[in-house]
């Protein structure tokens, strides 16, 4: 086999490309696209023939390379004396940016890492001779912790249907909360007041559904003095 493949060592198509550039000792600002494309495709073929799971990203970059190569072959047209941009520019920019962060990752890894280079005390309660309940301050809790907590809660409940959180449900809850806020402040309102001058249909529908839900919950009462008339809402006692 012409190409020795260790796919694991590449972090992605950009990494493979950087490797080829380094291996060929090429100036990153002046990449011989034909050569690099050929080598890149060689690697891709080798990976395929080894039945390695080739991530789609590798193929996307392959087509980008082929595209650049074909553009390089076209005679450059200099219209109005304006210099045409180099078809490689975009890719070079991307490569340099990636390289910057690859080096940054290396520098991060060279820092003094907790649990690798230095360690903090691992023992917990027993050192105080009495147990303490661990609490998180609100600043320590982020949205991810909340989602994770919800996942744990429903996982222990052991049913699947609860796993879906759909956007509609959240939007409805949001609308319900807003209406409860308004009713707590003013005791009464009307449907058109709740809609305001915002006329998007989704908002109107959610507002209506929220009112129905709140009526069902007996949080508010709705009145209408005539068919199709204004819907008046008041907080239930």
């Amino acid at each position, binding site marked *: 086999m012409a190409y020795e493949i260790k796919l694991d060592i590449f972090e992605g198509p950009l990494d493979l490309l950087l490797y080829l550039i380094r291996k060929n000792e090429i100036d990153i600002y002046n990449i011989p696209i034909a050569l690099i494309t050929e080598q890149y495709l060689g690697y891709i073929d080798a990976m395929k023939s080894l039945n390695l799971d080739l991530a789609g990203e590798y193929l996307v970059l392959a087509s980008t390379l082929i595209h650049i190569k074909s553009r390089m072959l076209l005679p450059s047209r200099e219209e109005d004396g304006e210099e045409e941009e180099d078809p490689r520019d975009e890719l070079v920019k991307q490569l340099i940016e990636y390289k910057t962060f690859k080096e940054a990752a290396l520098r991060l890894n060279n820092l003094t890492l907790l649990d690798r280079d230095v360690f903090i005390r691992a023992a917990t309660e027993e050192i105080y001779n009495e147990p303490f309940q661990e609490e*998180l301050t609100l600043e320590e809790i982020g949205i991810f912790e909340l989602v994770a907590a919800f996942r744990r809660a429903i996982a222990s409940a052991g049913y699947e249907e609860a796993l879906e959180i759909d956007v509609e449900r959240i939007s409805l809850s949001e609308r319900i909360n807003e209406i409860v806020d308004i009713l707590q402040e003013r005791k009464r309102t009307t449907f058109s007041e709740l809609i305001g001058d915002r006329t998007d249909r989704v908002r109107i529908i959610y507002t209506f559904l929220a009112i129905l839900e709140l009526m069902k919950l007996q949080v508010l009462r709705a009145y209408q003095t005539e068919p199709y008339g204004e819907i008046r809402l008041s907080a239930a006692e």
Partner: protein
Amino acid sequence: MENLKAIIEALLFAADAPLTAARIAEILGECDEGAVKSALLDIKSDYSGRHSGIAIVDVAGGIQMRTREDLAPWIRKLKAPKAAGLSQPALETLAVIAYRQPIMKSEIERIRGVDVSGVLKGLLEKSLIRIVGRKDVPGKPIIYGTNRHFLEVFGLRDLSDLPTLKEMDEEES
């Protein structure tokens, strides 16, 4: 040998359970248990001699670093439940309410499988949730929802800012 003491000190500090002299000697390799034992005695007297806040104590067949017993009141203050803190059960209950509101207590308990009365009281006191109303069924159960303060704490503009589980699963795929 000064460095032997430093290594043992670091090991005692980093260990998650009491260490025996034999285990320490094993880690050190070319060091015999007797030398470890005498170093341990040295360290012990160093710590008590300089009135350190940390004590080296014999416990459960091994040796462990602990805070000095008479300093417990301060440590308790450090570890005291924070005024604005949330325990794991409280966080889970809050999460269920956030994602399933408006929701009845019985429904929260069905999902969490435990009584949540105390937790709900705590969350109400911290103004993270509120009573939205009462459901029109026998017993008129109270219905809960989140508060505006909840949004502030989690830095959300509105509830639609909450990530959906599907979004979090996509991160996994």
